[in-house]
Protein backbone atom coordinates (compact mmCIF):
# COMPACT_ATOMS: atom_id res chain seq x y z
CA UNK A 1 0.00 0.00 0.00
CA UNK A 2 1.28 3.42 -0.93
CA UNK A 3 -0.51 5.06 1.90
CA UNK A 4 1.31 5.26 5.23
CA UNK A 5 -0.66 4.19 8.27
CA UNK A 6 -0.35 7.39 10.29
CA UNK A 7 -3.17 6.79 12.69
CA UNK A 8 -2.92 3.44 14.45
CA UNK A 9 -5.55 4.70 16.84
CA UNK A 10 -8.14 4.85 14.05
CA UNK A 11 -11.15 2.65 14.87
CA UNK A 12 -12.93 3.09 11.56
CA UNK A 13 -14.74 5.44 9.25
CA UNK A 14 -18.39 6.17 9.81
CA UNK A 15 -21.10 7.44 7.48
CA UNK A 16 -24.34 9.02 8.60
CA UNK A 17 -27.66 8.43 6.80
CA UNK A 18 -31.07 9.98 7.08
CA UNK A 19 -33.40 7.04 6.45
CA UNK A 20 -33.45 3.29 7.18
CA UNK A 21 -33.81 2.54 3.45
CA UNK A 22 -30.57 4.38 2.69
CA UNK A 23 -28.83 2.46 5.46
CA UNK A 24 -30.07 -0.91 4.14
CA UNK A 25 -28.85 -0.03 0.67
CA UNK A 26 -25.53 1.16 2.06
CA UNK A 27 -25.16 -2.07 4.04
CA UNK A 28 -25.86 -4.15 0.94
CA UNK A 29 -23.29 -2.23 -1.10
CA UNK A 30 -20.73 -2.39 1.69
CA UNK A 31 -21.08 -6.14 1.82
CA UNK A 32 -20.93 -6.34 -2.00
CA UNK A 33 -17.72 -4.25 -1.93
CA UNK A 34 -16.13 -7.01 0.14
CA UNK A 35 -15.98 -5.38 3.57
CA UNK A 36 -16.62 -7.75 6.45
CA UNK A 37 -15.83 -5.81 9.61
CA UNK A 38 -18.52 -3.19 9.62
CA UNK A 39 -21.51 -2.46 11.77
CA UNK A 40 -24.74 -0.51 11.60
CA UNK A 41 -26.17 1.65 14.37
CA UNK A 42 -29.86 2.54 14.40
CA UNK A 43 -32.32 4.05 16.88
CA UNK A 44 -34.75 1.13 16.41
CA UNK A 45 -34.73 -2.38 14.91
CA UNK A 46 -34.96 -2.32 11.11
CA UNK A 47 -36.47 -5.22 9.19
CA UNK A 48 -34.13 -6.55 6.55
CA UNK A 49 -30.99 -4.89 7.89
CA UNK A 50 -29.54 -8.08 9.32
CA UNK A 51 -30.07 -9.82 5.98
CA UNK A 52 -28.57 -6.85 4.11
CA UNK A 53 -25.48 -6.97 6.32
CA UNK A 54 -25.16 -10.71 5.76
CA UNK A 55 -24.70 -11.46 9.44
CA UNK A 56 -24.69 -15.14 10.26
CA UNK A 57 -26.59 -15.26 13.55
CA UNK A 58 -26.09 -18.89 14.42
CA UNK A 59 -24.24 -18.54 17.70
CA UNK A 60 -26.89 -17.69 20.28
CA UNK A 61 -29.47 -20.31 19.14
CA UNK A 62 -26.89 -23.09 19.27
CA UNK A 63 -25.66 -21.94 22.67
CA UNK A 64 -29.23 -22.01 23.96
CA UNK A 65 -29.80 -25.45 22.45
CA UNK A 66 -26.67 -26.95 23.97
CA UNK A 67 -27.36 -25.38 27.37
CA UNK A 68 -30.96 -26.62 27.26
CA UNK A 69 -29.88 -30.12 26.33
CA UNK A 70 -27.30 -30.08 29.11
CA UNK A 71 -29.94 -28.90 31.60
CA UNK A 72 -32.41 -31.61 30.58
CA UNK A 73 -29.83 -34.40 30.79
CA UNK A 74 -28.30 -33.10 34.02
CA UNK A 75 -31.60 -32.72 35.89
CA UNK A 76 -32.93 -36.04 34.64
CA UNK A 77 -29.70 -37.75 35.68
CA UNK A 78 -29.82 -36.12 39.09
CA UNK A 79 -33.27 -37.58 39.70
CA UNK A 80 -32.22 -40.99 38.43
CA UNK A 81 -29.20 -40.90 40.71
CA UNK A 82 -31.13 -39.83 43.81
CA UNK A 83 -34.21 -42.02 43.39
CA UNK A 84 -32.79 -45.09 41.68
CA UNK A 85 -29.12 -45.42 42.65
CA UNK A 86 -28.33 -43.54 45.83
CA UNK A 87 -31.55 -43.88 47.82
CA UNK A 88 -34.13 -46.09 46.10
CA UNK A 89 -37.54 -45.16 47.43
CA UNK A 90 -40.68 -47.22 47.03
CA UNK A 91 -43.53 -44.83 46.21
CA UNK A 92 -46.83 -46.65 46.01
CA UNK A 93 -45.16 -49.73 44.53
CA UNK A 94 -44.06 -47.94 41.37
CA UNK A 95 -40.78 -48.53 39.57
CA UNK A 96 -37.80 -46.71 41.02
CA UNK A 97 -37.29 -45.31 37.54
CA UNK A 98 -40.71 -43.65 37.37
CA UNK A 99 -39.79 -41.39 34.49
CA UNK A 100 -43.12 -39.54 34.18
CA UNK A 101 -42.40 -38.05 37.61
CA UNK A 102 -39.01 -36.84 36.44
CA UNK A 103 -40.27 -34.93 33.41
CA UNK A 104 -41.45 -31.71 35.12
CA UNK A 105 -38.08 -31.24 36.83
CA UNK A 106 -36.24 -32.16 33.62
CA UNK A 107 -38.28 -29.53 31.82
CA UNK A 108 -37.58 -26.90 34.48
CA UNK A 109 -33.88 -27.66 34.36
CA UNK A 110 -33.86 -27.37 30.58
CA UNK A 111 -35.62 -24.00 30.70
CA UNK A 112 -33.33 -22.72 33.45
CA UNK A 113 -30.10 -23.65 31.67
CA UNK A 114 -31.39 -22.53 28.27
CA UNK A 115 -32.35 -19.14 29.72
CA UNK A 116 -28.91 -18.74 31.28
CA UNK A 117 -27.39 -19.70 27.94
CA UNK A 118 -29.48 -17.11 26.14
CA UNK A 119 -28.83 -14.31 28.62
CA UNK A 120 -25.13 -14.84 29.23
CA UNK A 121 -24.46 -15.93 25.64
CA UNK A 122 -26.10 -12.81 24.24
CA UNK A 123 -24.04 -10.56 26.52
CA UNK A 124 -20.81 -12.42 25.79
CA UNK A 125 -21.19 -12.49 21.99
CA UNK A 126 -22.10 -8.80 21.95
CA UNK A 127 -19.03 -7.98 24.04
CA UNK A 128 -21.18 -6.54 26.80
CA UNK A 129 -20.89 -4.87 29.19
CA UNK A 130 -18.78 -2.34 27.24
CA UNK A 131 -18.04 0.76 29.35
CA UNK A 132 -16.17 2.32 26.42
CA UNK A 133 -16.95 2.22 22.72
CA UNK A 134 -15.06 4.34 20.15
CA UNK A 135 -18.11 5.29 18.06
CA UNK A 136 -19.19 7.70 20.78
CA UNK A 137 -16.15 9.84 19.96
CA UNK A 138 -18.03 11.17 16.94
CA UNK A 139 -20.30 14.07 18.00
CA UNK A 140 -23.00 13.29 15.36
CA UNK A 141 -23.35 9.81 16.83
CA UNK A 142 -25.48 11.24 19.65
CA UNK A 143 -28.38 11.11 17.19
CA UNK A 144 -27.98 7.35 16.67
CA UNK A 145 -30.51 6.91 19.46
CA UNK A 146 -33.04 9.33 18.02
CA UNK A 147 -33.26 9.84 14.25
CA UNK A 148 -30.02 9.04 12.40
CA UNK A 149 -28.63 5.82 10.92
CA UNK A 150 -24.92 5.03 10.95
CA UNK A 151 -22.64 2.61 9.17
CA UNK A 152 -19.06 2.21 10.33
CA UNK A 153 -16.37 0.30 8.42
CA UNK A 154 -13.78 -0.75 10.94
CA UNK A 155 -10.02 -0.46 10.54
CA UNK A 156 -9.49 -4.11 11.38
CA UNK A 157 -11.16 -5.13 8.11
CA UNK A 158 -8.51 -6.76 5.88
CA UNK A 159 -9.58 -4.58 2.94
CA UNK A 160 -9.41 -1.40 4.97
CA UNK A 161 -7.66 1.47 3.25
CA UNK A 162 -8.39 4.89 4.60
CA UNK A 163 -8.65 6.72 1.27
CA UNK A 164 -10.53 4.03 -0.54
CA UNK A 165 -13.02 3.54 2.30
CA UNK A 166 -13.49 7.30 2.35
CA UNK A 167 -14.20 7.36 -1.38
CA UNK A 168 -16.47 4.35 -1.13
CA UNK A 169 -18.54 5.88 1.64
CA UNK A 170 -18.69 9.11 -0.33
CA UNK A 171 -20.30 7.17 -3.19
CA UNK A 172 -23.15 6.12 -0.89
CA UNK A 173 -24.27 9.77 -0.57
CA UNK A 174 -24.27 9.99 3.23
CA UNK A 175 -25.10 13.14 5.21
CA UNK A 176 -21.61 13.17 6.66
CA UNK A 177 -18.47 11.05 6.98
CA UNK A 178 -16.37 11.02 10.13
CA UNK A 179 -13.21 9.30 11.25
CA UNK A 180 -13.70 7.38 14.46
CA UNK A 181 -10.79 7.49 16.89
CA UNK A 182 -10.16 4.35 18.85
Amino acid at each position, binding site marked *: MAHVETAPQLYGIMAEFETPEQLIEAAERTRAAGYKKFDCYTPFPI*HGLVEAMGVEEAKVPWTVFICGLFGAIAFFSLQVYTSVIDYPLNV*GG*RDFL*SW*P*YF*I*PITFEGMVLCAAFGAFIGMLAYNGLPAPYHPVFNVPQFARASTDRFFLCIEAKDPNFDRNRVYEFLQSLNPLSISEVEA
Partner: protein
Amino acid sequence: MSHPASNEQQVRERIARGRSLALVVGIVGLAASLAGMFGIFGDPKLAFQGYHFGFFYWLLLGLGCLGMSLLAHATRGQWTLPLIRIWESGARAIPVVMLLYVPVLALGMKHVYEWMHTEHVAEDPVLQAKSPFFFWPADYTGTPVFFLVRFVFYAAVWFLMANFLWKKSLQQDQAKDPIEGEVLSRQRTGPASGMIVAFMLVFTLAMVDFGQSLMPHWFSTMYAVIMVVGGGFLALALAVYMVLQWRDLPPYTGKITYMPYRRDWGNFMFTLTVFWSYVSFSQLLITYSGNLYEFTQFYLRRNDGGWQYLAYLIVIFHFFVPFFLFLAPRTKKVVPQLLAGAILVLAIRTVDIFWQIKPFFAETLSISLFDITAFVGFGGLWFYFMLGFLNQRALLPQNEARLMEVAHGHS
Protein backbone atom coordinates in the same frame (compact mmCIF):
# COMPACT_ATOMS: atom_id res chain seq x y z
CA MET B 1 -60.74 -5.18 -6.55
CA SER B 2 -57.26 -6.37 -5.68
CA HIS B 3 -57.84 -9.99 -6.70
CA PRO B 4 -59.77 -10.11 -9.94
CA ALA B 5 -61.73 -13.32 -10.27
CA SER B 6 -60.33 -14.04 -13.73
CA ASN B 7 -56.81 -15.02 -12.68
CA GLU B 8 -58.14 -17.21 -9.87
CA GLN B 9 -59.44 -19.54 -12.57
CA GLN B 10 -56.69 -22.14 -12.16
CA VAL B 11 -57.19 -22.56 -8.43
CA ARG B 12 -60.94 -22.70 -8.88
CA GLU B 13 -60.57 -25.41 -11.52
CA ARG B 14 -58.36 -27.43 -9.18
CA ILE B 15 -60.93 -27.06 -6.42
CA ALA B 16 -63.67 -28.23 -8.79
CA ARG B 17 -61.60 -31.23 -9.88
CA GLY B 18 -60.79 -32.08 -6.25
CA ARG B 19 -64.51 -31.93 -5.52
CA SER B 20 -65.46 -34.46 -8.17
CA LEU B 21 -62.75 -36.83 -7.00
CA ALA B 22 -63.80 -36.38 -3.36
CA LEU B 23 -67.42 -37.12 -4.22
CA VAL B 24 -66.56 -40.38 -5.99
CA VAL B 25 -64.18 -41.55 -3.24
CA GLY B 26 -66.66 -40.49 -0.57
CA ILE B 27 -69.60 -42.33 -2.06
CA VAL B 28 -67.57 -45.51 -2.63
CA GLY B 29 -66.25 -45.40 0.93
CA LEU B 30 -69.64 -44.75 2.49
CA ALA B 31 -71.31 -47.39 0.34
CA ALA B 32 -68.78 -49.98 1.50
CA SER B 33 -69.30 -48.95 5.13
CA LEU B 34 -73.08 -49.08 4.83
CA ALA B 35 -72.89 -52.48 3.14
CA GLY B 36 -70.73 -53.62 6.05
CA MET B 37 -73.36 -52.45 8.54
CA PHE B 38 -75.80 -54.88 6.97
CA GLY B 39 -73.33 -57.70 7.43
CA ILE B 40 -72.29 -58.05 3.78
CA PHE B 41 -68.57 -58.19 4.65
CA GLY B 42 -68.74 -60.10 7.92
CA ASP B 43 -69.33 -58.81 11.44
CA PRO B 44 -71.35 -55.58 11.29
CA LYS B 45 -69.82 -54.52 14.62
CA LEU B 46 -66.54 -53.65 12.90
CA ALA B 47 -68.37 -51.58 10.31
CA PHE B 48 -70.11 -49.48 12.96
CA GLN B 49 -66.94 -49.05 14.98
CA GLY B 50 -64.94 -48.04 11.91
CA TYR B 51 -67.75 -45.66 11.02
CA HIS B 52 -67.45 -44.05 14.43
CA PHE B 53 -63.72 -43.50 13.87
CA GLY B 54 -64.41 -41.82 10.51
CA PHE B 55 -67.10 -39.68 12.09
CA PHE B 56 -64.90 -38.67 15.01
CA TYR B 57 -61.93 -37.76 12.82
CA TRP B 58 -63.80 -35.55 10.37
CA LEU B 59 -65.96 -34.02 13.08
CA LEU B 60 -62.76 -33.07 14.89
CA LEU B 61 -61.29 -31.55 11.73
CA GLY B 62 -64.50 -29.61 11.09
CA LEU B 63 -64.56 -28.38 14.68
CA GLY B 64 -60.89 -27.48 14.41
CA CYS B 65 -61.83 -25.33 11.41
CA LEU B 66 -64.64 -23.72 13.40
CA GLY B 67 -62.37 -23.07 16.38
CA MET B 68 -59.64 -21.58 14.21
CA SER B 69 -62.19 -19.34 12.42
CA LEU B 70 -63.45 -18.10 15.77
CA LEU B 71 -59.90 -17.46 16.92
CA ALA B 72 -59.11 -15.65 13.67
CA HIS B 73 -62.17 -13.41 13.89
CA ALA B 74 -61.65 -12.71 17.59
CA THR B 75 -57.94 -11.86 17.45
CA ARG B 76 -57.78 -10.41 13.91
CA GLY B 77 -54.30 -11.84 13.39
CA GLN B 78 -52.97 -10.90 9.95
CA TRP B 79 -51.49 -14.35 9.43
CA THR B 80 -54.98 -15.89 9.52
CA LEU B 81 -56.24 -13.95 6.49
CA PRO B 82 -54.88 -16.28 3.76
CA LEU B 83 -56.24 -19.33 5.61
CA ILE B 84 -59.54 -18.12 7.00
CA ARG B 85 -61.72 -18.96 3.98
CA ILE B 86 -60.59 -22.59 4.15
CA TRP B 87 -61.51 -22.75 7.83
CA GLU B 88 -64.87 -21.08 7.36
CA SER B 89 -65.73 -23.52 4.59
CA GLY B 90 -64.59 -26.50 6.66
CA ALA B 91 -66.67 -25.34 9.63
CA ARG B 92 -69.72 -25.02 7.42
CA ALA B 93 -69.35 -28.67 6.38
CA ILE B 94 -69.82 -29.93 9.98
CA PRO B 95 -73.59 -30.59 9.57
CA VAL B 96 -72.76 -33.01 6.73
CA VAL B 97 -70.61 -35.08 9.09
CA MET B 98 -73.34 -34.99 11.73
CA LEU B 99 -75.97 -36.06 9.20
CA LEU B 100 -73.84 -38.95 7.96
CA TYR B 101 -73.74 -40.32 11.52
CA VAL B 102 -77.45 -41.08 11.46
CA PRO B 103 -76.95 -44.76 10.43
CA VAL B 104 -75.13 -45.39 13.70
CA LEU B 105 -77.80 -43.59 15.73
CA ALA B 106 -80.54 -45.53 13.97
CA LEU B 107 -78.98 -48.99 13.65
CA GLY B 108 -75.79 -49.48 15.55
CA MET B 109 -75.60 -47.64 18.88
CA LYS B 110 -75.09 -50.98 20.64
CA HIS B 111 -72.00 -51.77 18.57
CA VAL B 112 -70.32 -48.50 19.48
CA TYR B 113 -71.45 -47.51 22.98
CA GLU B 114 -70.99 -49.90 25.87
CA TRP B 115 -73.57 -48.04 27.95
CA MET B 116 -76.21 -49.17 25.43
CA HIS B 117 -75.80 -52.77 26.56
CA THR B 118 -78.69 -53.15 28.99
CA GLU B 119 -77.30 -56.41 30.38
CA HIS B 120 -73.95 -54.75 31.29
CA VAL B 121 -75.60 -51.76 32.90
CA ALA B 122 -77.91 -53.97 34.91
CA GLU B 123 -74.92 -55.49 36.74
CA ASP B 124 -73.00 -52.27 37.10
CA PRO B 125 -73.97 -49.62 39.67
CA VAL B 126 -71.48 -47.10 38.23
CA LEU B 127 -73.00 -47.28 34.76
CA GLN B 128 -76.47 -47.15 36.26
CA ALA B 129 -75.59 -43.94 38.04
CA LYS B 130 -74.23 -42.48 34.83
CA SER B 131 -77.07 -43.64 32.62
CA PRO B 132 -79.41 -40.64 33.11
CA PHE B 133 -76.82 -38.57 31.23
CA PHE B 134 -77.72 -40.61 28.15
CA PHE B 135 -81.22 -41.92 28.77
CA TRP B 136 -83.05 -39.19 30.67
CA PRO B 137 -86.04 -39.03 31.01
CA ALA B 138 -86.24 -42.79 30.37
CA ASP B 139 -84.21 -45.38 32.30
CA TYR B 140 -81.31 -47.35 30.83
CA THR B 141 -83.57 -49.90 29.18
CA GLY B 142 -85.18 -47.26 26.97
CA THR B 143 -84.03 -44.99 24.14
CA PRO B 144 -81.06 -42.68 24.83
CA VAL B 145 -83.25 -39.61 24.44
CA PHE B 146 -80.99 -37.14 26.19
CA PHE B 147 -78.03 -38.27 24.10
CA LEU B 148 -79.99 -37.83 20.89
CA VAL B 149 -81.28 -34.43 21.97
CA ARG B 150 -77.71 -33.33 22.62
CA PHE B 151 -76.68 -34.65 19.22
CA VAL B 152 -79.23 -32.42 17.52
CA PHE B 153 -78.28 -29.55 19.81
CA TYR B 154 -74.57 -29.81 18.88
CA ALA B 155 -75.38 -29.89 15.18
CA ALA B 156 -77.58 -26.81 15.54
CA VAL B 157 -75.08 -24.82 17.59
CA TRP B 158 -72.18 -25.58 15.27
CA PHE B 159 -74.23 -24.82 12.18
CA LEU B 160 -75.40 -21.49 13.62
CA MET B 161 -71.87 -20.46 14.60
CA ALA B 162 -70.34 -21.42 11.25
CA ASN B 163 -73.16 -19.77 9.39
CA PHE B 164 -72.84 -16.57 11.40
CA LEU B 165 -69.15 -16.25 10.58
CA TRP B 166 -69.85 -17.13 6.95
CA LYS B 167 -72.49 -14.42 6.62
CA LYS B 168 -70.41 -11.79 8.39
CA SER B 169 -67.46 -12.48 6.09
CA LEU B 170 -69.70 -12.32 3.04
CA GLN B 171 -71.01 -8.98 4.25
CA GLN B 172 -67.46 -7.69 4.27
CA ASP B 173 -66.82 -9.04 0.76
CA GLN B 174 -69.81 -7.03 -0.43
CA ALA B 175 -68.96 -3.85 1.49
CA LYS B 176 -68.58 -0.72 -0.57
CA ASP B 177 -64.95 -0.01 0.38
CA PRO B 178 -62.11 -1.20 2.67
CA ILE B 179 -63.07 1.36 5.30
CA GLU B 180 -66.50 -0.20 5.70
CA GLY B 181 -64.77 -3.60 5.53
CA GLU B 182 -62.53 -2.64 8.43
CA VAL B 183 -65.53 -1.54 10.51
CA LEU B 184 -67.29 -4.86 9.83
CA SER B 185 -64.13 -6.79 10.65
CA ARG B 186 -63.82 -5.03 14.00
CA GLN B 187 -67.49 -5.61 14.77
CA ARG B 188 -66.95 -9.37 14.50
CA THR B 189 -64.39 -9.55 17.31
CA GLY B 190 -66.99 -9.22 20.11
CA PRO B 191 -69.40 -11.99 19.02
CA ALA B 192 -66.49 -14.23 17.99
CA SER B 193 -64.88 -13.90 21.44
CA GLY B 194 -68.14 -14.78 23.15
CA MET B 195 -68.66 -17.70 20.83
CA ILE B 196 -65.25 -19.14 21.76
CA VAL B 197 -66.56 -19.64 25.29
CA ALA B 198 -69.77 -21.27 24.04
CA PHE B 199 -67.77 -23.33 21.55
CA MET B 200 -65.52 -24.76 24.25
CA LEU B 201 -68.46 -25.62 26.53
CA VAL B 202 -70.34 -27.41 23.77
CA PHE B 203 -67.16 -29.05 22.51
CA THR B 204 -66.38 -30.42 25.98
CA LEU B 205 -69.82 -32.00 26.21
CA ALA B 206 -69.50 -33.46 22.73
CA MET B 207 -66.16 -35.03 23.59
CA VAL B 208 -67.77 -36.70 26.60
CA ASP B 209 -70.42 -38.14 24.32
CA PHE B 210 -68.39 -39.19 21.29
CA GLY B 211 -65.03 -39.92 22.92
CA GLN B 212 -64.99 -40.61 26.64
CA SER B 213 -68.33 -42.42 26.78
CA LEU B 214 -66.84 -45.19 24.63
CA MET B 215 -65.11 -46.33 27.84
CA PRO B 216 -67.87 -45.29 30.22
CA HIS B 217 -66.03 -45.98 33.48
CA TRP B 218 -63.19 -43.75 32.43
CA PHE B 219 -63.09 -39.98 32.38
CA SER B 220 -60.52 -37.22 32.06
CA THR B 221 -60.86 -33.49 32.49
CA MET B 222 -57.97 -33.00 30.04
CA TYR B 223 -59.65 -34.92 27.24
CA ALA B 224 -61.54 -32.03 25.64
CA VAL B 225 -58.45 -29.82 25.82
CA ILE B 226 -56.27 -32.44 24.13
CA MET B 227 -58.91 -32.88 21.46
CA VAL B 228 -59.51 -29.19 20.78
CA VAL B 229 -55.79 -28.60 20.40
CA GLY B 230 -55.54 -31.64 18.14
CA GLY B 231 -58.49 -30.49 16.03
CA GLY B 232 -57.13 -26.98 15.64
CA PHE B 233 -53.72 -28.39 14.76
CA LEU B 234 -55.28 -30.56 12.06
CA ALA B 235 -57.21 -27.60 10.63
CA LEU B 236 -54.13 -25.39 10.64
CA ALA B 237 -51.96 -28.00 8.94
CA LEU B 238 -54.61 -28.63 6.29
CA ALA B 239 -55.06 -24.94 5.50
CA VAL B 240 -51.30 -24.31 5.38
CA TYR B 241 -50.89 -27.37 3.15
CA MET B 242 -53.57 -26.20 0.72
CA VAL B 243 -52.36 -22.62 0.50
CA LEU B 244 -48.72 -23.64 0.05
CA GLN B 245 -49.69 -26.18 -2.61
CA TRP B 246 -51.27 -23.31 -4.54
CA ARG B 247 -48.51 -20.79 -3.85
CA ASP B 248 -47.72 -20.38 -7.58
CA LEU B 249 -51.33 -19.71 -8.53
CA PRO B 250 -53.25 -16.49 -7.95
CA PRO B 251 -54.57 -15.37 -5.54
CA TYR B 252 -52.07 -17.23 -3.33
CA THR B 253 -48.94 -15.92 -5.04
CA GLY B 254 -46.44 -13.38 -3.75
CA LYS B 255 -47.13 -11.81 -0.43
CA ILE B 256 -50.09 -14.05 0.45
CA THR B 257 -47.62 -16.86 1.12
CA TYR B 258 -44.54 -14.76 1.86
CA MET B 259 -42.04 -15.26 4.63
CA PRO B 260 -43.63 -13.24 7.49
CA TYR B 261 -46.87 -15.22 7.12
CA ARG B 262 -45.05 -18.51 6.82
CA ARG B 263 -43.09 -17.64 9.94
CA ASP B 264 -46.34 -17.08 11.83
CA TRP B 265 -47.84 -20.32 10.52
CA GLY B 266 -44.72 -22.28 11.41
CA ASN B 267 -44.57 -20.65 14.84
CA PHE B 268 -48.22 -21.44 15.48
CA MET B 269 -47.65 -25.06 14.51
CA PHE B 270 -44.70 -25.06 16.89
CA THR B 271 -46.92 -23.65 19.63
CA LEU B 272 -49.58 -26.29 19.02
CA THR B 273 -46.95 -29.05 19.02
CA VAL B 274 -45.78 -27.93 22.44
CA PHE B 275 -49.28 -27.32 23.79
CA TRP B 276 -50.53 -30.68 22.55
CA SER B 277 -47.53 -32.41 24.15
CA TYR B 278 -48.05 -30.49 27.37
CA VAL B 279 -51.72 -31.41 27.81
CA SER B 280 -51.19 -35.00 26.62
CA PHE B 281 -48.33 -35.52 29.02
CA SER B 282 -50.25 -33.84 31.83
CA GLN B 283 -53.07 -36.33 31.43
CA LEU B 284 -50.55 -39.18 31.59
CA LEU B 285 -48.77 -37.74 34.64
CA ILE B 286 -51.99 -37.13 36.57
CA THR B 287 -53.22 -40.63 35.72
CA TYR B 288 -49.87 -42.13 36.68
CA SER B 289 -49.82 -40.28 40.01
CA GLY B 290 -53.40 -41.16 40.89
CA ASN B 291 -52.89 -44.81 39.97
CA LEU B 292 -56.59 -45.65 40.16
CA TYR B 293 -58.03 -48.23 37.81
CA GLU B 294 -60.87 -46.04 36.58
CA PHE B 295 -58.26 -43.65 35.18
CA THR B 296 -55.39 -45.97 34.31
CA GLN B 297 -57.48 -48.34 32.17
CA PHE B 298 -57.27 -45.82 29.35
CA TYR B 299 -53.48 -46.10 29.23
CA LEU B 300 -53.32 -49.77 30.15
CA ARG B 301 -55.27 -50.50 26.99
CA ARG B 302 -53.06 -48.22 24.90
CA ASN B 303 -49.77 -49.43 26.34
CA ASP B 304 -50.34 -53.07 25.50
CA GLY B 305 -51.32 -55.43 22.70
CA GLY B 306 -49.22 -53.61 20.12
CA TRP B 307 -50.83 -50.21 20.73
CA GLN B 308 -47.66 -49.15 22.55
CA TYR B 309 -45.79 -49.09 19.23
CA LEU B 310 -48.20 -46.48 17.90
CA ALA B 311 -47.65 -44.58 21.14
CA TYR B 312 -43.87 -44.57 20.56
CA LEU B 313 -44.46 -43.40 17.01
CA ILE B 314 -46.66 -40.58 18.29
CA VAL B 315 -44.12 -39.47 20.90
CA ILE B 316 -41.42 -39.27 18.22
CA PHE B 317 -43.39 -37.78 15.33
CA HIS B 318 -45.93 -35.74 17.25
CA PHE B 319 -43.43 -34.20 19.64
CA PHE B 320 -39.70 -34.57 18.97
CA VAL B 321 -39.63 -34.27 15.18
CA PRO B 322 -42.12 -31.39 14.77
CA PHE B 323 -40.64 -29.68 17.83
CA PHE B 324 -37.25 -29.27 16.17
CA LEU B 325 -38.71 -28.91 12.67
CA PHE B 326 -40.96 -25.97 13.52
CA LEU B 327 -38.38 -24.48 15.87
CA ALA B 328 -35.84 -24.07 13.06
CA PRO B 329 -36.05 -20.68 11.31
CA ARG B 330 -35.08 -22.46 8.09
CA THR B 331 -38.38 -24.37 8.01
CA LYS B 332 -40.27 -21.11 7.62
CA LYS B 333 -37.88 -19.79 4.96
CA VAL B 334 -37.88 -22.89 2.75
CA VAL B 335 -41.39 -23.55 1.47
CA PRO B 336 -41.03 -27.32 0.76
CA GLN B 337 -39.81 -27.82 4.32
CA LEU B 338 -42.86 -26.12 5.82
CA LEU B 339 -45.05 -28.06 3.41
CA ALA B 340 -43.41 -31.29 4.59
CA GLY B 341 -44.09 -30.19 8.17
CA ALA B 342 -47.78 -29.69 7.40
CA ILE B 343 -47.96 -33.15 5.77
CA LEU B 344 -46.22 -34.69 8.79
CA VAL B 345 -48.77 -33.08 11.09
CA LEU B 346 -51.70 -34.33 9.00
CA ALA B 347 -50.25 -37.85 9.01
CA ILE B 348 -49.35 -38.10 12.69
CA ARG B 349 -52.58 -36.44 13.81
CA THR B 350 -54.41 -39.19 11.91
CA VAL B 351 -52.34 -41.85 13.68
CA ASP B 352 -52.98 -40.14 17.00
CA ILE B 353 -56.76 -39.98 16.56
CA PHE B 354 -56.75 -43.63 15.49
CA TRP B 355 -54.75 -44.46 18.63
CA GLN B 356 -57.25 -42.47 20.69
CA ILE B 357 -60.39 -44.11 19.28
CA LYS B 358 -59.61 -47.61 18.03
CA PRO B 359 -58.30 -49.08 21.32
CA PHE B 360 -61.71 -48.33 22.85
CA PHE B 361 -62.95 -51.13 20.60
CA ALA B 362 -59.94 -53.41 20.16
CA GLU B 363 -57.51 -54.76 22.75
CA THR B 364 -54.79 -55.53 20.22
CA LEU B 365 -53.34 -53.41 17.46
CA SER B 366 -55.57 -53.87 14.44
CA ILE B 367 -57.09 -51.97 11.59
CA SER B 368 -60.24 -53.11 9.85
CA LEU B 369 -61.31 -52.46 6.28
CA PHE B 370 -64.12 -50.32 7.65
CA ASP B 371 -61.77 -47.98 9.49
CA ILE B 372 -60.44 -47.11 6.04
CA THR B 373 -63.73 -47.05 4.13
CA ALA B 374 -65.37 -44.82 6.75
CA PHE B 375 -62.31 -42.57 6.88
CA VAL B 376 -62.30 -41.94 3.12
CA GLY B 377 -66.10 -41.95 3.00
CA PHE B 378 -66.55 -39.19 5.56
CA GLY B 379 -63.45 -37.44 4.24
CA GLY B 380 -64.67 -37.50 0.65
CA LEU B 381 -68.03 -36.00 1.50
CA TRP B 382 -66.52 -33.48 3.89
CA PHE B 383 -64.11 -32.32 1.20
CA TYR B 384 -66.86 -32.29 -1.40
CA PHE B 385 -68.88 -29.80 0.64
CA MET B 386 -65.93 -27.91 2.06
CA LEU B 387 -64.39 -27.28 -1.37
CA GLY B 388 -67.83 -26.40 -2.71
CA PHE B 389 -68.23 -23.74 -0.03
CA LEU B 390 -64.70 -22.52 -0.69
CA ASN B 391 -65.49 -22.03 -4.37
CA GLN B 392 -68.68 -20.12 -3.64
CA ARG B 393 -66.95 -16.97 -2.41
CA ALA B 394 -63.78 -15.01 -3.02
CA LEU B 395 -60.77 -17.13 -2.01
CA LEU B 396 -59.35 -14.31 0.10
CA PRO B 397 -61.23 -11.81 2.26
CA GLN B 398 -62.24 -8.81 0.17
CA ASN B 399 -62.26 -5.17 1.30
CA GLU B 400 -59.66 -6.23 3.83
CA ALA B 401 -57.38 -3.29 4.57
CA ARG B 402 -54.81 -5.49 6.31
CA LEU B 403 -54.45 -7.72 3.26
CA MET B 404 -54.26 -4.78 0.86
CA GLU B 405 -51.43 -3.32 2.89
CA VAL B 406 -49.52 -6.51 2.24
CA ALA B 407 -50.49 -6.81 -1.40
CA HIS B 408 -49.52 -3.24 -2.27
CA GLY B 409 -47.07 -2.39 0.49
CA HIS B 410 -43.40 -1.72 -0.07
CA SER B 411 -41.88 -3.70 2.78
